[in-house]
């Protein structure tokens, strides 16, 4: 589904973010990417999102080179990816309902779809009772669940989660990972970048370990080893 073909990213002669990365992610996979800060995890995720271009090599999504897509096509492509970040990125002036509806509106979905799908995804993340709350009225775990609801509402093929548990307590972190697992079981690829050893070990899924822009380990059913 996603294929990195000898991808390197250099910001300058002395600053290399990624070096000769070759990986492939298959449909329905749950992949954890681990590594120290600056190992290149976020750059790798940005490459998948089309926010960063490789200095060398290519990134393919279903055999299409992402970085050769035009403006119009890259927008269409991004609608097939849901993103979840450590800092939630919710719009503070919008309610929970409106934050999720915002993503649907931006994708050109109809009012009828919005009215039926938003309550449905909120039910999936156990937040039906917070539908009219504003982000400031929610806990960290609840905010992240809204972010996940927003990420899945357009039924993406891939969920990219960059340190989604970074700002959360262990119980909330577990809840978020459970939701991501549930989404994965329904057929969506999940790519998770994290520092959380406990979570990675408990998943028992594929683990890619990065260091200084290189992949140093890629284990199916791997453990967090640094």
């Amino acid at each position, binding site marked *: 589904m996603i294929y990195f073909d000898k991808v390197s990213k250099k910001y300058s002669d002395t600053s290399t973010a990624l070096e000769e990365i070759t990986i492939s992610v298959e449909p329905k996979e749950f992949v954890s990417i681990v590594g120290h800060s600056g190992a290149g995890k976020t750059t790798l995720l940005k490459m998948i999102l089309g926010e960063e271009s490789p200095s060398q090599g290519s990134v393919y999504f279903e055999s299409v080179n992402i970085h050769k897509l035009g403006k119009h096509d890259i*927008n269409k492509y991004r*609608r097939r990816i849901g993103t979840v970040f450590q800092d939630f990125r919710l719009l503070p002036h919008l309610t929970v309902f409106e934050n999720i509806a915002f*993503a649907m509106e931006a994708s050109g979905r109809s009012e009828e779809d919005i009215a039926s799908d938003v309550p449905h995804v909120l039910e999936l993340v156990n937040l039906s009772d917070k539908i009219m709350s504003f982000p400031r009225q929610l806990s960290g775990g609840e905010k992240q669940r809204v972010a996940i609801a927003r990420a899945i509402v357009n039924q993406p093929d891939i969920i990219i989660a960059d340190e989604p548990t970074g700002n959360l307590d262990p119980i909330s972190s577990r809840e978020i990972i459970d939701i991501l697992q549930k989404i994965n079981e329904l057929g969506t690829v999940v790519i998770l970048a994290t520092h959380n050893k406990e979570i990675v070990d408990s998943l028992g899924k594929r683990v890619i370990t990065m260091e200084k822009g290189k992949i140093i380990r890629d284990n199916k059913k791997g453990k967090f080893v640094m």
Partner: protein
Amino acid sequence: MFWINTKRIVRLGFINFARNISVSIAAVLITTVALLVIASLMFSRAVLDSTLSQIQNAVDIRVYLSNSANNDEIASLQKRIEALPEVAQVSLSTNDQELADFTSRHQNDQLTLQAIEEIGANPFGSAFSIKAKDISQYSGIASFLDAEQNQTQSSIIDRVNYSRNKQAIDVINKMIASSKKLGITGVIFFSLISLLITFNTISLAIYMAREEISVMRLVGASTRYIRGPFIVSGLIYGLCASILSLIIILPITYWVGPKIYDLGTGINLFNFYLSNIVMFIGVITASGLAIGALSSYLAVRKYLKV
């Protein structure tokens, strides 16, 4: 889908405007200042045109005829002058009118009046006052009169005062040409400065919404969908600023109008504003909308790079 998105873009534009109300007010006020600069350039142009027109109207060529000229000769010469394509108007002042004017001008100068009386007869000849269609055409008319005076032995032209007015006419000619160039340069210069200031203020409003733009990009919103609401907000800034400017101009011109008129410009700005209100509404509103939309378009561009 196009109409659904358009409706959402317009709605988001209004929401953006209302949400950051203090920044929106700042943007409207800055745009208002920009529009007032444009309006003041229009008024300056009108004052300049009117003043130049006043001066232009005061300029003429006086042709003094010999007092022996009879009515037929005078009428014949008048016809020849009127036939010139440069001539707008030829007015005849008879020798009696010339005497009356002279007497009136010197009514407090008893010595001069007594001297006239002692001559016994009217010493003045008739005179033509010639106005050209354009101030640059006086030299052509003067050449014709010069030829008339020198080439015909029995010319009834006694003297022409063009050479005395020539310097003033040349100065006015240069003033008109310079003012036209200066006016265009001024409009371009001040419009660019206004656009720059407005652009920076609107940039601030868009900077505050950068998080929203990044979320829109992440969920795959099209460029049109991201940019649209900011352009709508820019149009609202422009429209509000236009209305505000058109209202502010009323009391300003009401107060300043008579003062400008008293300076001898021949124009009352308040009356000028009211009689050209449709043009002002059109120019100010179009400028406001253009400044608002263009500034928003440019300001949001840097957040849209893929």
